[in-house]
Protein backbone atom coordinates (compact mmCIF):
# COMPACT_ATOMS: atom_id res chain seq x y z
CA UNK A 1 0.00 0.00 0.00
CA UNK A 2 1.40 3.40 -0.98
CA UNK A 3 0.58 5.66 1.93
CA UNK A 4 -0.75 4.03 5.06
CA UNK A 5 -1.88 7.37 6.49
CA UNK A 6 -4.55 7.50 3.78
CA UNK A 7 -6.41 4.54 5.29
CA UNK A 8 -9.42 5.18 7.45
CA UNK A 9 -9.31 3.74 10.97
CA UNK A 10 -11.71 0.97 9.90
CA UNK A 11 -9.67 0.17 6.79
CA UNK A 12 -6.46 0.05 8.82
CA UNK A 13 -8.12 -2.23 11.36
CA UNK A 14 -9.24 -4.61 8.64
CA UNK A 15 -5.83 -4.54 6.90
CA UNK A 16 -4.14 -5.40 10.21
CA UNK A 17 -6.61 -8.18 10.89
CA UNK A 18 -5.99 -9.76 7.47
CA UNK A 19 -2.22 -9.22 8.01
CA UNK A 20 -1.87 -7.11 4.85
CA UNK A 21 0.05 -4.57 6.94
CA UNK A 22 1.79 -4.61 10.32
CA UNK A 23 1.11 -2.35 13.28
CA UNK A 24 4.79 -1.39 13.15
CA UNK A 25 4.66 -0.08 9.57
CA UNK A 26 1.30 1.62 10.17
CA UNK A 27 2.70 3.36 13.24
CA UNK A 28 5.96 4.25 11.49
CA UNK A 29 4.01 5.93 8.67
CA UNK A 30 2.06 8.03 11.17
CA UNK A 31 5.17 8.96 13.17
CA UNK A 32 6.79 10.16 9.92
CA UNK A 33 3.68 12.20 9.11
CA UNK A 34 3.62 13.64 12.65
CA UNK A 35 7.29 14.61 12.56
CA UNK A 36 6.92 16.24 9.13
CA UNK A 37 3.96 18.32 10.32
CA UNK A 38 5.55 20.25 13.18
CA UNK A 39 4.72 23.48 11.33
CA UNK A 40 1.06 22.82 12.23
CA UNK A 41 1.91 22.57 15.97
CA UNK A 42 -0.67 19.81 16.55
CA UNK A 43 1.29 17.95 19.22
CA UNK A 44 2.55 19.33 22.51
CA UNK A 45 4.38 16.10 23.32
CA UNK A 46 5.31 13.42 20.78
CA UNK A 47 5.83 9.87 22.07
CA UNK A 48 7.28 7.97 19.06
CA UNK A 49 9.28 5.44 21.11
CA UNK A 50 6.24 4.58 23.21
CA UNK A 51 4.16 4.24 20.04
CA UNK A 52 6.65 1.87 18.39
CA UNK A 53 6.84 -0.23 21.57
CA UNK A 54 3.04 -0.46 21.68
CA UNK A 55 2.96 -1.32 17.97
CA UNK A 56 5.43 -4.16 18.57
CA UNK A 57 3.19 -5.52 21.32
CA UNK A 58 0.20 -5.21 18.98
CA UNK A 59 1.94 -7.16 16.22
CA UNK A 60 2.70 -9.91 18.74
CA UNK A 61 -0.92 -9.96 19.91
CA UNK A 62 -2.23 -10.06 16.34
CA UNK A 63 0.11 -12.98 15.59
CA UNK A 64 -1.23 -14.83 18.64
CA UNK A 65 -4.81 -14.12 17.60
CA UNK A 66 -5.41 -11.93 20.67
CA UNK A 67 -6.07 -8.61 18.94
CA UNK A 68 -8.27 -6.07 20.69
CA UNK A 69 -10.85 -3.92 18.86
CA UNK A 70 -8.31 -1.10 18.30
CA UNK A 71 -5.21 -3.28 18.08
CA UNK A 72 -2.26 -1.48 16.51
CA UNK A 73 -4.18 1.67 15.50
CA UNK A 74 -2.22 4.92 16.05
CA UNK A 75 -4.24 7.62 17.81
CA UNK A 76 -3.56 11.05 19.28
CA UNK A 77 -4.60 11.97 22.82
CA UNK A 78 -5.78 15.46 23.71
CA UNK A 79 -3.39 16.84 26.30
CA UNK A 80 -6.22 17.20 28.79
CA UNK A 81 -6.19 13.44 29.44
CA UNK A 82 -3.75 12.36 32.14
CA UNK A 83 -1.32 9.79 30.78
CA UNK A 84 0.86 7.72 33.07
CA UNK A 85 4.52 8.69 32.73
CA UNK A 86 3.84 11.16 29.91
CA UNK A 87 3.80 14.91 30.66
CA UNK A 88 0.27 16.35 30.75
CA UNK A 89 -0.10 20.11 30.37
CA UNK A 90 -3.74 21.09 29.61
CA UNK A 91 -1.89 23.56 27.31
CA UNK A 92 -1.14 25.69 30.37
CA UNK A 93 2.14 26.85 31.88
CA UNK A 94 0.75 26.34 35.36
CA UNK A 95 1.16 22.56 35.25
CA UNK A 96 4.88 22.85 34.45
CA UNK A 97 6.28 19.37 33.81
CA UNK A 98 3.41 17.60 35.57
CA UNK A 99 3.76 13.90 34.82
CA UNK A 100 0.81 11.84 36.04
CA UNK A 101 1.40 8.65 37.95
CA UNK A 102 -1.92 7.33 36.65
CA UNK A 103 -3.82 6.96 33.37
CA UNK A 104 -7.23 8.52 32.67
CA UNK A 105 -10.00 5.95 32.39
CA UNK A 106 -10.84 6.76 28.77
CA UNK A 107 -7.23 6.61 27.55
CA UNK A 108 -6.75 3.43 29.61
CA UNK A 109 -9.78 1.94 27.83
CA UNK A 110 -8.16 2.73 24.47
CA UNK A 111 -4.88 1.12 25.54
CA UNK A 112 -6.79 -1.90 26.88
CA UNK A 113 -8.28 -2.32 23.40
CA UNK A 114 -4.85 -2.21 21.75
CA UNK A 115 -4.54 1.40 20.55
CA UNK A 116 -1.13 2.95 19.90
CA UNK A 117 -0.55 6.44 21.33
CA UNK A 118 1.44 8.86 19.16
CA UNK A 119 1.46 11.67 21.71
CA UNK A 120 -0.41 14.51 23.35
CA UNK A 121 -2.39 16.92 21.23
CA UNK A 122 -2.52 20.70 21.56
CA UNK A 123 -5.68 22.48 22.75
CA UNK A 124 -6.88 25.80 24.10
CA UNK A 125 -5.55 26.36 27.62
CA UNK A 126 -7.69 24.27 29.99
CA UNK A 127 -10.02 23.74 26.98
CA UNK A 128 -11.13 27.38 27.19
CA UNK A 129 -11.34 28.68 23.65
CA UNK A 130 -12.77 28.14 20.18
CA UNK A 131 -9.70 28.59 17.98
CA UNK A 132 -6.76 26.95 19.79
CA UNK A 133 -5.20 30.41 20.09
CA UNK A 134 -5.20 30.41 23.92
CA UNK A 135 -2.72 27.50 24.17
CA UNK A 136 0.40 28.31 26.16
CA UNK A 137 2.23 26.19 23.58
CA UNK A 138 1.17 28.33 20.63
CA UNK A 139 -1.75 28.07 18.24
CA UNK A 140 -2.43 25.07 16.02
CA UNK A 141 -2.61 25.78 12.30
CA UNK A 142 -5.30 23.98 10.34
CA UNK A 143 -4.20 21.92 7.35
CA UNK A 144 -7.01 23.65 5.44
CA UNK A 145 -6.40 26.87 3.48
CA UNK A 146 -8.77 29.40 2.08
CA UNK A 147 -9.12 29.28 -1.69
CA UNK A 148 -6.70 31.79 -3.23
CA UNK A 149 -5.32 32.85 0.17
CA UNK A 150 -2.51 30.44 1.11
CA UNK A 151 -0.81 32.84 3.51
CA UNK A 152 -3.73 33.11 5.98
CA UNK A 153 -3.22 30.79 8.96
CA UNK A 154 -6.61 29.14 9.43
CA UNK A 155 -7.62 28.05 12.94
CA UNK A 156 -8.63 24.41 13.49
CA UNK A 157 -11.34 25.36 15.97
CA UNK A 158 -11.18 24.71 19.68
CA UNK A 159 -10.71 23.65 22.22
CA UNK A 160 -9.82 20.29 20.60
CA UNK A 161 -7.87 22.02 17.79
CA UNK A 162 -4.83 19.74 17.93
CA UNK A 163 -7.16 16.75 17.68
CA UNK A 164 -9.12 18.07 14.70
CA UNK A 165 -6.07 19.33 12.81
CA UNK A 166 -4.06 16.13 13.39
CA UNK A 167 -6.93 13.96 12.14
CA UNK A 168 -7.57 16.16 9.07
CA UNK A 169 -3.83 16.24 8.28
CA UNK A 170 -3.74 12.41 8.53
CA UNK A 171 -1.20 12.44 11.38
CA UNK A 172 -3.31 9.92 13.31
CA UNK A 173 -6.29 7.70 12.50
CA UNK A 174 -8.42 9.31 15.18
CA UNK A 175 -8.05 11.40 18.32
CA UNK A 176 -9.60 11.82 21.71
CA UNK A 177 -11.23 15.17 22.44
CA UNK A 178 -13.45 16.75 25.08
CA UNK A 179 -16.51 18.97 24.76
CA UNK A 180 -17.79 21.46 27.36
CA UNK A 181 -19.62 23.89 25.06
CA UNK A 182 -18.75 22.63 21.58
CA UNK A 183 -15.05 21.72 21.84
CA UNK A 184 -15.44 18.46 19.89
CA UNK A 185 -18.07 19.51 17.35
CA UNK A 186 -16.86 22.98 16.39
CA UNK A 187 -13.26 21.90 15.60
CA UNK A 188 -14.62 18.88 13.72
CA UNK A 189 -16.84 21.20 11.65
CA UNK A 190 -13.88 23.51 10.95
CA UNK A 191 -11.69 20.68 9.66
CA UNK A 192 -14.10 18.44 7.73
CA UNK A 193 -13.93 15.70 10.34
CA UNK A 194 -16.55 13.86 12.40
CA UNK A 195 -16.82 14.80 16.08
CA UNK A 196 -19.09 12.98 18.52
CA UNK A 197 -19.91 14.38 21.96
CA UNK A 198 -21.73 11.54 23.71
CA UNK A 199 -24.37 11.88 26.40
CA UNK A 200 -23.15 13.26 29.73
CA UNK A 201 -22.18 10.17 31.71
CA UNK A 202 -21.42 7.95 28.71
CA UNK A 203 -17.64 8.30 29.18
CA UNK A 204 -15.79 8.54 32.45
CA UNK A 205 -14.31 11.94 33.28
CA UNK A 206 -11.83 10.39 35.71
CA UNK A 207 -8.28 11.53 34.95
CA UNK A 208 -9.34 14.21 32.49
CA UNK A 209 -8.32 17.69 33.67
CA UNK A 210 -11.59 19.26 34.82
CA UNK A 211 -12.96 22.48 33.29
CA UNK A 212 -16.73 22.58 34.06
CA UNK A 213 -17.64 19.25 35.59
CA UNK A 214 -21.40 19.32 34.91
CA UNK A 215 -20.73 19.94 31.18
CA UNK A 216 -17.42 18.18 30.33
CA UNK A 217 -17.64 15.01 28.28
CA UNK A 218 -15.06 12.97 26.37
CA UNK A 219 -15.53 11.86 22.78
CA UNK A 220 -13.71 11.06 19.53
CA UNK A 221 -12.75 13.04 16.42
CA UNK A 222 -12.14 10.90 13.32
CA UNK A 223 -12.35 11.15 9.52
CA UNK A 224 -15.47 9.00 9.07
CA UNK A 225 -18.65 8.27 11.00
CA UNK A 226 -17.67 4.61 11.19
CA UNK A 227 -14.27 5.47 12.67
CA UNK A 228 -15.85 7.65 15.35
CA UNK A 229 -18.32 4.84 16.17
CA UNK A 230 -15.46 2.37 16.57
CA UNK A 231 -13.58 4.76 18.86
CA UNK A 232 -16.54 5.65 21.04
CA UNK A 233 -17.29 2.00 21.73
CA UNK A 234 -13.85 1.63 23.29
CA UNK A 235 -13.89 4.98 25.11
CA UNK A 236 -17.33 4.62 26.71
CA UNK A 237 -18.38 2.64 29.75
CA UNK A 238 -19.06 2.75 33.45
CA UNK A 239 -16.30 3.72 35.86
CA UNK A 240 -16.77 3.49 39.63
CA UNK A 241 -14.28 6.36 40.00
CA UNK A 242 -16.67 8.80 38.26
CA UNK A 243 -20.03 8.78 40.05
CA UNK A 244 -21.61 10.59 37.09
CA UNK A 245 -20.62 7.84 34.66
CA UNK A 246 -23.56 5.65 33.79
CA UNK A 247 -23.72 1.94 34.50
CA UNK A 248 -25.29 0.85 31.24
CA UNK A 249 -24.08 -1.52 28.53
CA UNK A 250 -22.12 0.05 25.64
CA UNK A 251 -23.66 -0.87 22.28
CA UNK A 252 -21.64 -1.83 19.21
CA UNK A 253 -22.12 1.60 17.60
CA UNK A 254 -20.72 0.44 14.27
CA UNK A 255 -23.83 -1.72 13.82
CA UNK A 256 -25.98 1.42 13.78
CA UNK A 257 -24.49 2.46 10.45
CA UNK A 258 -26.61 1.76 7.39
CA UNK A 259 -29.88 1.31 9.33
CA UNK A 260 -33.01 2.57 7.59
CA UNK A 261 -34.19 6.12 8.16
CA UNK A 262 -37.81 5.18 7.43
CA UNK A 263 -40.07 6.48 10.14
CA UNK A 264 -37.38 8.56 11.88
CA UNK A 265 -38.58 12.03 12.80
CA UNK A 266 -36.06 14.83 12.50
CA UNK A 267 -36.76 18.14 14.20
CA UNK A 268 -35.61 21.42 12.66
CA UNK A 269 -35.65 24.14 15.34
CA UNK A 270 -36.85 27.51 14.10
CA UNK A 271 -34.94 29.39 16.81
CA UNK A 272 -31.63 28.36 15.24
CA UNK A 273 -32.46 30.54 12.22
CA UNK A 274 -30.55 33.43 13.78
CA UNK A 275 -30.82 36.95 12.46
CA UNK A 276 -27.90 37.58 10.17
CA UNK A 277 -27.07 33.91 9.65
CA UNK A 278 -25.25 33.65 6.32
CA UNK A 279 -27.07 32.34 3.26
CA UNK A 280 -24.30 29.78 2.89
CA UNK A 281 -25.05 28.24 6.28
CA UNK A 282 -28.80 28.34 5.64
CA UNK A 283 -28.27 26.57 2.29
CA UNK A 284 -26.16 23.89 3.98
CA UNK A 285 -28.88 23.35 6.56
CA UNK A 286 -31.57 23.05 3.85
CA UNK A 287 -29.34 20.62 2.02
CA UNK A 288 -28.99 18.50 5.17
CA UNK A 289 -32.77 18.44 5.56
CA UNK A 290 -33.11 17.31 1.93
CA UNK A 291 -30.53 14.54 2.34
CA UNK A 292 -32.30 13.08 5.37
CA UNK A 293 -35.70 13.40 3.68
CA UNK A 294 -34.43 11.63 0.56
CA UNK A 295 -33.13 8.85 2.78
CA UNK A 296 -36.62 8.31 4.17
CA UNK A 297 -36.77 10.46 7.30
CA UNK A 298 -39.72 12.64 8.20
CA UNK A 299 -38.92 16.33 8.81
CA UNK A 300 -40.85 18.40 11.36
CA UNK A 301 -40.41 22.00 12.42
CA UNK A 302 -39.88 22.26 16.17
CA UNK A 303 -39.47 25.00 18.73
CA UNK A 304 -36.75 25.26 21.37
CA UNK A 305 -37.82 28.61 22.82
CA UNK A 306 -34.95 29.16 25.28
CA UNK A 307 -32.18 28.66 22.71
CA UNK A 308 -31.02 32.26 22.75
CA UNK A 309 -30.36 32.09 26.48
CA UNK A 310 -28.06 29.07 26.25
CA UNK A 311 -24.84 30.96 25.59
CA UNK A 312 -25.36 33.56 28.36
CA UNK A 313 -26.25 30.68 30.73
CA UNK A 314 -23.08 28.88 29.70
CA UNK A 315 -20.95 31.95 30.42
CA UNK A 316 -22.13 31.91 34.01
CA UNK A 317 -22.15 28.18 34.74
CA UNK A 318 -18.92 27.20 32.98
CA UNK A 319 -16.75 29.95 34.55
CA UNK A 320 -18.33 29.28 37.96
CA UNK A 321 -17.40 25.60 37.81
CA UNK A 322 -14.00 26.47 36.33
CA UNK A 323 -13.18 28.91 39.13
CA UNK A 324 -13.88 26.13 41.61
CA UNK A 325 -12.05 23.38 39.68
CA UNK A 326 -9.01 25.54 38.96
CA UNK A 327 -8.62 26.54 42.61
CA UNK A 328 -6.43 23.45 42.92
CA UNK A 329 -3.58 25.08 40.96
CA UNK A 330 -1.89 26.78 43.87
CA UNK A 331 1.77 25.86 43.50
CA UNK A 332 1.68 23.33 46.36
CA UNK A 333 1.05 19.85 45.01
CA UNK A 334 2.10 20.04 41.34
CA UNK A 335 3.05 22.51 38.66
CA UNK A 336 5.01 25.71 38.89
CA UNK A 337 5.52 27.80 42.03
CA UNK A 338 6.39 31.47 42.35
CA UNK A 339 7.65 32.81 45.64
CA UNK A 340 5.63 35.43 47.48
CA UNK A 341 5.78 37.40 50.71
CA UNK A 342 3.56 34.84 52.43
CA UNK A 343 1.47 31.86 51.37
CA UNK A 344 -1.25 34.07 49.93
CA UNK A 345 1.34 35.96 47.91
CA UNK A 346 2.70 32.65 46.66
CA UNK A 347 -0.76 31.58 45.48
CA UNK A 348 -1.46 34.91 43.79
CA UNK A 349 1.88 35.14 41.99
CA UNK A 350 1.85 31.48 40.96
CA UNK A 351 -1.62 31.77 39.46
CA UNK A 352 -0.90 35.11 37.78
CA UNK A 353 2.18 33.65 36.12
CA UNK A 354 0.75 30.21 35.31
CA UNK A 355 -2.65 31.06 33.83
CA UNK A 356 -3.07 32.80 30.47
CA UNK A 357 -5.40 35.79 29.94
CA UNK A 358 -8.52 33.84 28.88
CA UNK A 359 -8.26 31.45 31.83
CA UNK A 360 -7.68 34.31 34.28
CA UNK A 361 -10.69 36.15 32.86
CA UNK A 362 -12.97 33.12 33.21
CA UNK A 363 -11.80 32.36 36.73
CA UNK A 364 -12.55 35.95 37.70
CA UNK A 365 -16.02 35.89 36.12
CA UNK A 366 -16.72 32.61 37.90
CA UNK A 367 -15.46 33.98 41.20
CA UNK A 368 -17.71 37.01 40.81
CA UNK A 369 -20.92 35.13 39.97
CA UNK A 370 -20.37 32.80 42.94
CA UNK A 371 -19.51 35.57 45.40
CA UNK A 372 -21.75 36.67 48.23
CA UNK A 373 -24.49 39.01 47.04
CA UNK A 374 -24.32 37.90 43.40
CA UNK A 375 -24.82 34.15 43.72
CA UNK A 376 -28.63 34.25 43.46
CA UNK A 377 -28.77 36.92 40.78
CA UNK A 378 -26.32 35.14 38.48
CA UNK A 379 -25.58 31.55 39.36
CA UNK A 380 -28.93 30.36 40.71
CA UNK A 381 -30.81 32.18 37.93
CA UNK A 382 -28.54 30.55 35.31
CA UNK A 383 -29.21 27.11 36.82
CA UNK A 384 -32.95 27.78 36.52
CA UNK A 385 -32.63 28.85 32.89
CA UNK A 386 -30.60 25.71 32.31
CA UNK A 387 -33.61 23.71 33.55
CA UNK A 388 -35.78 25.50 30.99
CA UNK A 389 -33.33 24.74 28.17
CA UNK A 390 -33.41 21.08 29.12
CA UNK A 391 -37.24 21.12 29.33
CA UNK A 392 -37.34 22.45 25.75
CA UNK A 393 -35.53 19.35 24.53
CA UNK A 394 -37.53 17.00 26.76
CA UNK A 395 -40.77 18.33 25.24
CA UNK A 396 -39.52 17.84 21.68
CA UNK A 397 -38.36 14.29 22.32
CA UNK A 398 -41.60 13.47 24.20
CA UNK A 399 -43.48 14.61 21.10
CA UNK A 400 -41.79 11.84 19.12
CA UNK A 401 -38.81 13.58 17.56
CA UNK A 402 -35.82 11.20 17.25
CA UNK A 403 -33.12 13.77 16.57
CA UNK A 404 -32.60 17.46 15.83
CA UNK A 405 -30.70 18.81 12.80
CA UNK A 406 -28.86 22.16 12.96
CA UNK A 407 -25.76 23.77 11.49
CA UNK A 408 -22.69 23.00 13.62
CA UNK A 409 -21.23 26.52 13.50
CA UNK A 410 -22.42 29.94 12.29
CA UNK A 411 -19.47 30.26 9.88
CA UNK A 412 -16.53 28.34 8.40
CA UNK A 413 -13.13 28.59 10.12
CA UNK A 414 -11.48 32.00 10.35
CA UNK A 415 -7.82 32.97 10.39
CA UNK A 416 -5.65 33.59 13.46
CA UNK A 417 -6.32 36.96 15.08
CA UNK A 418 -9.56 37.56 13.21
CA UNK A 419 -11.93 37.00 16.14
CA UNK A 420 -12.14 38.01 19.77
CA UNK A 421 -9.19 40.43 19.80
CA UNK A 422 -11.20 43.36 21.12
CA UNK A 423 -14.30 41.67 22.55
CA UNK A 424 -14.16 38.18 24.11
CA UNK A 425 -17.87 37.69 23.40
CA UNK A 426 -17.25 37.64 19.62
CA UNK A 427 -15.27 34.40 20.00
CA UNK A 428 -17.90 32.93 22.35
CA UNK A 429 -20.56 33.14 19.59
CA UNK A 430 -18.83 30.28 17.76
CA UNK A 431 -20.57 27.90 20.15
CA UNK A 432 -24.08 29.29 19.66
CA UNK A 433 -25.39 26.04 18.07
CA UNK A 434 -23.43 23.55 20.15
CA UNK A 435 -23.70 24.85 23.69
CA UNK A 436 -27.39 23.96 24.18
CA UNK A 437 -26.43 20.30 23.91
CA UNK A 438 -24.06 20.49 26.88
CA UNK A 439 -26.64 22.45 28.87
CA UNK A 440 -29.07 19.52 28.44
CA UNK A 441 -26.45 16.74 28.69
CA UNK A 442 -27.46 15.34 25.30
CA UNK A 443 -25.37 13.58 22.65
CA UNK A 444 -24.42 15.62 19.57
CA UNK A 445 -22.40 14.87 16.47
CA UNK A 446 -20.86 17.15 13.86
CA UNK A 447 -20.56 15.66 10.37
CA UNK A 448 -19.12 17.33 7.25
CA UNK A 449 -21.73 18.74 4.87
CA UNK A 450 -19.53 20.24 2.17
CA UNK A 451 -17.28 23.21 1.52
CA UNK A 452 -17.95 26.93 1.84
CA UNK A 453 -17.36 29.24 -1.12
CA UNK A 454 -13.90 30.00 0.32
CA UNK A 455 -12.98 26.30 0.18
CA UNK A 456 -13.19 25.62 3.93
CA UNK A 457 -15.35 22.80 5.38
CA UNK A 458 -18.80 23.24 6.90
CA UNK A 459 -20.48 20.86 9.34
CA UNK A 460 -24.00 19.82 10.24
CA UNK A 461 -24.96 18.93 13.80
CA UNK A 462 -27.35 16.20 14.92
CA UNK A 463 -28.62 16.20 18.50
CA UNK A 464 -30.11 13.04 20.01
CA UNK A 465 -32.02 11.67 22.95
CA UNK A 466 -29.98 10.80 26.05
CA UNK A 467 -27.93 7.64 25.40
CA UNK A 468 -29.20 7.32 21.84
CA UNK A 469 -25.84 7.80 20.17
CA UNK A 470 -26.81 4.96 17.84
CA UNK A 471 -29.47 7.05 16.08
CA UNK A 472 -26.93 9.83 15.66
CA UNK A 473 -24.45 7.45 14.03
CA UNK A 474 -27.20 6.17 11.71
CA UNK A 475 -28.23 9.70 10.67
CA UNK A 476 -24.67 11.05 10.45
CA UNK A 477 -23.82 8.05 8.28
CA UNK A 478 -26.69 8.91 5.94
CA UNK A 479 -25.47 12.51 5.63
CA UNK A 480 -21.92 11.30 5.03
CA UNK A 481 -23.20 9.08 2.20
CA UNK A 482 -25.16 11.89 0.58
CA UNK A 483 -22.69 14.76 1.06
CA UNK A 484 -19.86 15.54 -1.34
CA UNK A 485 -16.77 13.54 -0.38
CA UNK A 486 -14.26 15.52 1.67
CA UNK A 487 -10.83 15.71 0.03
CA UNK A 488 -8.45 16.41 2.87
CA UNK A 489 -5.66 18.88 2.07
CA UNK A 490 -2.43 17.78 0.44
CA UNK A 491 0.55 17.96 2.79
CA UNK A 492 1.75 21.51 1.97
CA UNK A 493 3.22 21.70 5.47
CA UNK A 494 5.86 19.03 4.87
CA UNK A 495 9.34 20.46 5.01
CA UNK A 496 8.34 23.86 6.41
Amino acid at each position, binding site marked *: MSDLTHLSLAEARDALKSKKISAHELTRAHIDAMEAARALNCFITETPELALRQAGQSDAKIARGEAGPLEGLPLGIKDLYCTKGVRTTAASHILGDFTPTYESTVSANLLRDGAVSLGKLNLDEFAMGSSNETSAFGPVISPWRRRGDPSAKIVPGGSSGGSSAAVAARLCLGATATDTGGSIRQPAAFTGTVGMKPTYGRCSRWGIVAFASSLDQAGPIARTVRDSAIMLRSMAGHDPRDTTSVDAPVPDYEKALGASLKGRRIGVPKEYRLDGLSSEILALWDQGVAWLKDAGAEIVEISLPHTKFALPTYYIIAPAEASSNLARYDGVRYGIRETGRDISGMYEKTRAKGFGPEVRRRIMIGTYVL*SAGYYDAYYVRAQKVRSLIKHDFDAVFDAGVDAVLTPATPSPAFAQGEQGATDPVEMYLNDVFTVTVNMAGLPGVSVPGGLAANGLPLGLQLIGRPFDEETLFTLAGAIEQAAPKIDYPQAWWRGI
Partner: protein
Amino acid sequence: MSVDPAVVRRIAHLARIAVEDKEIERLNGEINAILAFVEALGSVDVAGVEPIASVLPMQMKKRPDVVDDGGIVDDILANAPAREDNYFVVPKVVE
Protein backbone atom coordinates in the same frame (compact mmCIF):
# COMPACT_ATOMS: atom_id res chain seq x y z
CA MET B 1 -24.99 45.09 36.73
CA SER B 2 -21.41 46.10 36.11
CA VAL B 3 -18.15 46.15 38.05
CA ASP B 4 -15.73 48.98 38.83
CA PRO B 5 -11.96 48.87 39.42
CA ALA B 6 -12.41 48.32 43.17
CA VAL B 7 -14.61 45.28 42.53
CA VAL B 8 -12.14 43.95 39.96
CA ARG B 9 -9.40 44.11 42.60
CA ARG B 10 -11.62 42.34 45.10
CA ILE B 11 -12.48 39.56 42.60
CA ALA B 12 -8.79 39.12 41.75
CA HIS B 13 -7.97 38.77 45.42
CA LEU B 14 -10.81 36.27 46.00
CA ALA B 15 -9.54 34.29 43.00
CA ARG B 16 -5.97 34.51 44.34
CA ILE B 17 -4.64 35.97 41.12
CA ALA B 18 -2.18 38.86 41.37
CA VAL B 19 -3.22 41.70 39.08
CA GLU B 20 -1.03 44.67 38.22
CA ASP B 21 -2.49 48.17 38.30
CA LYS B 22 -2.07 48.60 34.57
CA GLU B 23 -4.24 45.49 33.92
CA ILE B 24 -7.22 46.68 35.93
CA GLU B 25 -8.77 48.91 33.31
CA ARG B 26 -8.61 46.27 30.56
CA LEU B 27 -10.01 43.56 32.88
CA ASN B 28 -12.76 45.90 33.99
CA GLY B 29 -13.83 46.41 30.38
CA GLU B 30 -13.67 42.70 29.52
CA ILE B 31 -15.61 41.62 32.59
CA ASN B 32 -18.28 44.25 31.93
CA ALA B 33 -18.59 43.08 28.30
CA ILE B 34 -19.28 39.54 29.54
CA LEU B 35 -21.68 40.75 32.24
CA ALA B 36 -23.55 42.77 29.60
CA PHE B 37 -23.78 39.63 27.48
CA VAL B 38 -25.29 37.53 30.29
CA GLU B 39 -27.68 40.34 31.23
CA ALA B 40 -30.20 38.75 28.82
CA LEU B 41 -31.02 36.16 31.50
CA GLY B 42 -32.75 38.86 33.52
CA SER B 43 -35.63 38.79 31.01
CA VAL B 44 -36.42 35.08 31.48
CA ASP B 45 -39.43 34.21 33.61
CA VAL B 46 -38.02 31.70 36.09
CA ALA B 47 -40.87 31.84 38.60
CA GLY B 48 -41.46 28.36 39.98
CA VAL B 49 -38.52 26.85 38.07
CA GLU B 50 -36.14 24.65 40.04
CA PRO B 51 -32.40 25.19 39.47
CA ILE B 52 -31.02 22.17 37.63
CA ALA B 53 -29.22 19.67 39.84
CA SER B 54 -28.31 17.01 37.30
CA VAL B 55 -28.97 16.65 33.58
CA LEU B 56 -29.96 13.02 34.03
CA PRO B 57 -32.36 11.51 36.51
CA MET B 58 -29.79 9.29 38.13
CA GLN B 59 -29.20 7.92 41.59
CA MET B 60 -25.64 8.43 42.68
CA LYS B 61 -23.98 5.05 43.04
CA LYS B 62 -22.56 4.28 46.44
CA ARG B 63 -19.81 1.88 47.41
CA PRO B 64 -19.06 0.22 50.74
CA ASP B 65 -17.41 2.66 53.15
CA VAL B 66 -14.05 0.94 53.28
CA VAL B 67 -10.47 1.96 52.55
CA ASP B 68 -9.70 0.66 49.07
CA ASP B 69 -6.70 2.79 48.13
CA GLY B 70 -3.59 4.22 49.72
CA GLY B 71 0.08 3.60 50.38
CA ILE B 72 1.06 5.76 47.40
CA VAL B 73 2.87 8.61 49.13
CA ASP B 74 5.60 8.75 46.48
CA ASP B 75 3.00 8.98 43.71
CA ILE B 76 1.24 11.82 45.49
CA LEU B 77 4.46 13.75 46.09
CA ALA B 78 6.03 12.94 42.72
CA ASN B 79 5.10 16.28 41.13
CA ALA B 80 5.45 18.54 44.18
CA PRO B 81 7.40 21.77 43.59
CA ALA B 82 8.85 21.40 47.11
CA ARG B 83 8.80 18.38 49.43
CA GLU B 84 10.48 17.26 52.61
CA ASP B 85 10.18 13.67 53.76
CA ASN B 86 6.51 12.79 53.25
CA TYR B 87 5.26 16.38 53.22
CA PHE B 88 4.48 19.18 50.81
CA VAL B 89 6.45 22.25 51.82
CA VAL B 90 4.77 25.68 51.84
CA PRO B 91 5.83 29.11 53.15
CA LYS B 92 5.29 29.63 56.87
CA VAL B 93 1.56 30.02 57.59
CA VAL B 94 1.49 30.51 61.39
CA GLU B 95 3.70 33.18 63.00
